[in-house]
């Protein structure tokens, strides 16, 4: 085990897969100079045929990745900012994701898309702060969002080896975080949630950049005598229903803590699964603490009414444990 930063771990995962399989190549904006840091050194190491700087043509190069993948390559597409998902949307959800099905199961489309610096960053404002994973998940795209350096590497490697399109969200808030990373070649499998902390009174489902905050809240709650379990789904689609439902059936209470928009968001999905599948075990309403449904404003004076906050999570957890069925 080594201590590594999230971004470094992700890069190491990418590099290992490039070494392992010469079908893996990277394309995206400014990846040779690695403005985002994910591809640092890769152009120097692997050369021009493995690392492509693209023009500002996101729909176009997303489509290229699809074609290259059908032809046997394993492209890794870097999106420099989260909004590029919107610009390339048709090529993602209506092409890459659907083609195999519509072709009746012919071929494979092993493309990995890395959405760099997703979510809010101080001062980046409305068009550079989104977390559009609910949109991709709604359209059936496999989507992961690692919360730790270990998973950043393990999910990067698993995504590249997966024979389907997989989108990885790499939230700004986590990129510099340090954590232990196992030695050697390992994968973090898709479809398995991580129990970030065990507990018995209440389940907090926390996503990506909010996992560290949720863990801190769980400590605060512990000091108040409440034992909170923190679930980090990390694989958003496929979602590990078993781990989620087992936890909620055990605790009977759940608060979902998510940094995407609220309406039809990821927290809504978790809530719906719980309200259907674990309803008999529930001892309190299912609560969501999410973003408010506005673009992230520029002035940080405005953040508190927009971004999901630990204070609101705590409040919701405290209210939840006080509830009794009427």
């Amino acid at each position: 085990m080594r201590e590594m930063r999230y971004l470094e771990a992700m890069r190491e995962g990418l590099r290992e897969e490039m070494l392992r399989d010469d079908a893996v190549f990277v394309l995206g904006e400014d990846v040779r100079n690695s403005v985002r840091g994910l591809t640092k050194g890769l152009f120097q190491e692997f050369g021009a045929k493995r690392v492509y700087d693209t023009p500002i043509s996101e729909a176009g190069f997303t489509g290229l990745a699809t074609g290259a993948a059908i032809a046997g390559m394993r492209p890794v597409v870097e999106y420099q900012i989260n909004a590029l998902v919107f610009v390339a949307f048709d090529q993602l959800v209506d092409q890459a994701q659907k083609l195999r099905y519509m072709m009746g199961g012919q071929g494979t489309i092993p493309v990995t898309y890395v959405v760099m610096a997703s979510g809010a960053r101080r001062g980046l404002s409305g068009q550079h702060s989104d977390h559009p994973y609910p949109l991709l998940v709604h359209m059936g795209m496999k989507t992961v969002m690692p919360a730790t350096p270990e998973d950043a590497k393990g999910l990067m490697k698993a995504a590249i080896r997966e024979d389907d399109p997989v989108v990885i969200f790499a939230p700004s808030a986590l990129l510099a975080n340090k954590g232990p990373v196992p030695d050697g070649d390992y994968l973090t499998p898709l479809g398995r949630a991580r129990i970030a902390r065990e507990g018995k009174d209440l389940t907090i489902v926390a996503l990506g950049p909010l996992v560290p905050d949720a863990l801190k809240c769980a400590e605060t709650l512990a000091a108040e005598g409440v034992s909170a379990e923190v679930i980090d789904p990390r694989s958003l689609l496929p979602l590990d229903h078993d781990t989620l439902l087992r936890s909620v059936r055990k605790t009977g209470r759940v608060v979902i803590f998510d940094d995407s928009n609220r309406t039809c968001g990821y927290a809504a999905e978790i809530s719906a699964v719980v309200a259907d599948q674990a309803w008999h075990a529930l001892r309190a309403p299912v609560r969501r603490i999410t973003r408010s449904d506005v673009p992230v404003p520029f002035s940080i004076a405005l953040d508190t009414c927009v971004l999901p906050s630990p204070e609101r999570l705590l409040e919701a957890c405290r209210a939840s444990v006080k509830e009794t069925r009427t």
Partner: protein
Amino acid sequence: MNASDNQLVGFYRCMRLIRRFEERVVELVNRNEIVGTTHEYVGEEAVATGVCHALGVEDVITSTHRGHGHILAKGGDPRRMVAELMGRKTGYNGGRGGSMHIADLGLGIYGANGIVGAGVPIACGAAMAFKQRDSSRVAVAFFGDGAINQGVVHEAMNLACIWQLPVVFVCENNGYGITASIRDMSRIQKLSDRAAAYGMPAETVDGMDVRAVHAATTALVARARAGGGPSFIECLTYRFVGHFTAERALGLKYRTEQEVAEWRLRDPIATYPLWLRDQKLCDPARVDEEVEAQLEEAIAYARESELPAPQDALQGMYAVTYPGLPARGW
């Protein structure tokens, strides 16, 4: 390079097959044996035929909503095509795709596509793979005059040019995108002039002349194989029928009868066999019979094929599956 005698006969067989395939499809749609609507390639046969006969089986094409002609010309099996159109299990896509999605990866057919322009970057991606693998394979992107105004097509052409990908862009200019005349949709009328914006060679050819299309494509494909990069061919052509089988019911009037009649005079299915006979290359009537028999058999095959089981609908989206994926709706 001139086409061989064999090829010249092959052109006719292919064009005739496409024409009759489409005519039979319309019958089947009218009889509700095929559900929905299809986009016929009637009138444009010389384009797909000329282009695809300049390709090998290892080369790749991406097609459009109007894909039957491209697929047949690239070697697609009419039996599995009709079966797909009838929603059968034996269809190319197991009934999951239908007319707008027929694909045969083994034949390098990366699919028809329901989204105008969307196949163009996909062809370029295949070309990118070929280039990276130092293969001499090439890709062809078919698209219409309507598609040329779609952003992703522009992006793909630029990408192909900067990376010098082995791809040929084939613009099938049939004058209309549904009811919209290209005269109203582009201020320049020669669409091949658009290619200069990206720095690739381009030409405009008579899309009713299969030999002209074949010759132009052969040269540009050879260029691409030799590492010469992308190029652009505009084929001037016309669809003799409506945009789709559903058009009749709509009573649209966006073309004059005279215009249709003028183009019909140049119908390759009418003119080319005369030339073939003059050249004593074959007896077109023989070819016609063979085509007819092939289609009879294809339709019979499809009719006899089983329908897919409802549960099949949840199969095939992912190459790697997980519990609960795809989510069921209940």
